[in-house]
């Protein structure tokens, strides 16, 4: 701090501190605290706010625990977000390895550019594309019928199938890039040394490359899980009535019931879920926050 003052003087240092304080207090900490506080208060008409009925209680949270459907949706959201994360890892790992260790380096910029094109096209359009593809009379069913794999069109958009397909497509790149960065920093000589010593390919991956890729796996998993669990677009477009997502219930409390207090309680639970997931991953992979947020 004294260092900052010496270099930039009191006025500029004060400005830096003020900007940072505005960000962290007015935009991050206080809104989240207020969300937390609000989640314990009842939903009342404006005239009764601050009145005798306005006291703290766990009622909003009890609404959740008394609703088997909401609990079920919450659990499925966790389970399917975890499955999406795992699928993204399985798809992205060979690719990350290929891009960092096998592909010719002069091809890389072109490959990355091609991979990045879907990322620049907005998320809502990416989900919409799958909405078209997965339709009952859509291209995928026509293709599968055409080559004789199936003889009845498949209803892709029932259950969680559509959501998983959409989420994996939308977020696989958030797994690929951290993995690529992590594997790329591994010295290729280490891989060759393992091979020279007679290690089969799978053991080289298991004992040399995967351990080195840990920070990449951690940050990729955190990003994909967080984005999947918090996604609103993909589940709304690609899910059916039987497969709802927790965010859709939050949205209902906020907009349809206009009950912002219960909405806060549900939003807080989503926040808690993501925080727990991040801490578990950090513990499991023994990485720091600065390794994850790169």
């Amino acid at each position, binding site marked *: 701090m004294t260092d900052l003052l010496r270099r930039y003087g009191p006025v500029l240092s004060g400005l830096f501190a003020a900007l940072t304080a505005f960000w962290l207090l007015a935009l991050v900490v206080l809104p989240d605290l207020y969300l937390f506080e609000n989640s314990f208060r009842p939903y009342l008409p404006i005239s009764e706010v601050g009145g005798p009925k306005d006291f703290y209680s766990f009622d909003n949270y009890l609404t959740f625990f008394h609703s088997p459907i909401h609990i079920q949706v919450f659990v499925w959201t966790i389970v399917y977000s975890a499955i999406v994360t795992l699928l993204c890892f399985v798809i992205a790992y060979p690719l990350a390895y290929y891009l960092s260790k096998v592909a010719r380096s002069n091809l890389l910029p072109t490959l990355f550019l091609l991979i990045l094109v879907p990322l620049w096209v907005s998320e809502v*359009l990416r989900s919409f594309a799958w909405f078209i593809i997965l339709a009952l009379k859509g291209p995928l069913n026509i293709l599968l019928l055409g080559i004789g794999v199936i003889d009845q069109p498949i209803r892709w958009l029932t259950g969680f199938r559509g959501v998983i397909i959409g989420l994996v497509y939308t977020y696989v790149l958030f797994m690929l890039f951290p993995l690529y960065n992590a594997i790329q920093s591994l010295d290729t000589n280490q891989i060759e040394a393992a091979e020279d010593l007679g290690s089969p390919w799978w053991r080289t991956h298991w004992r040399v490359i995967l351990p080195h890729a840990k920070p990449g796996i951690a940050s990729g998993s955190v990003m994909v899980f967080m984005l999947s669990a918090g996604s*609103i677009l993909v589940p709304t477009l690609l899910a059916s009535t039987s497969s709802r997502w927790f965010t859709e219930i939050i949205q209902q409390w906020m907009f349809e019931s206009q009950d912002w207090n219960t909405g806060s309680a549900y939003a807080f639970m989503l926040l808690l879920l*993501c925080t727990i997931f991040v801490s578990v991953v950090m513990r499991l992979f023994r990485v720091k926050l600065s390794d994850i947020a790169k």
Partner: protein
Amino acid sequence: MSQARRSDWLFHAYMVVFLLYMLLPLIVMGGAAFNDSRFPSVYPWVGFTDRWFVDLWNDGRLWGAFRNTLFVALAVVGLSIPIGTAAAILINSLSGAARSVLYGLMVAPVLTPGAVIGISTLLFWNKFSVPAGLHLSVLGQVSYIAAFVMLLVLARLQSFDRQLEEAALDLGASHAQVLRRILLPHLYPAIGAGAAIAFFQSIENFNTTLFTRGTYDTLTVYVFSKVRSGITPTINALALILISVTLVCAICYEISRRRSEKRAAMAAE
């Protein structure tokens, strides 16, 4: 190494399949823009039409949403650049526990679901009787986009030679001069990259905007409501235009990159 070579073709094939997987949905979506069918689809193919593009052009609500999106994105860039840069300079001069606490607070919004950011922003400002609207969308988005700017600038600060500042101060430069003439020029590449990322993140944002926007439309919200209710191929026309713009930009970038590479190779000879 021979071991790796034998499996190379498998990797190449996997790469090709992955690229197809990434790009085919976009092609299908673009193709549907020309199909003269009331529903957005490429099959059955009813006939070629350009009426979805005409519809798109005449859609006043779309243009409004487009303007709002640009307005929000520019405001987000304008706010998150100074905030992110200041936060990076501040945290760079700290060490120990204070640094890790602040760092955790700054990174946390990136790992917070967009819906939660949107709801907390809405509730908090509503307490001060600030109604929902685009201004709240800007604040909500800045709360996590500033973190991207902070991370980029912080990374750039690692390669900064701090003795330059000492030298300038010894030679009698004012604090403002040190910042403007020495530190900021070194940070410009990171600030530029931060501005680009902030701009695109803002355009792309849906979750935070959905809860804070009030009655205003932004492009993603508009497309979302259209897709959910209307089922109209005008969205395919919009998608095709966006994909084309992306591709043209990508190709231009690639050409300029190859050209400068060639020039560098020639200069090296």
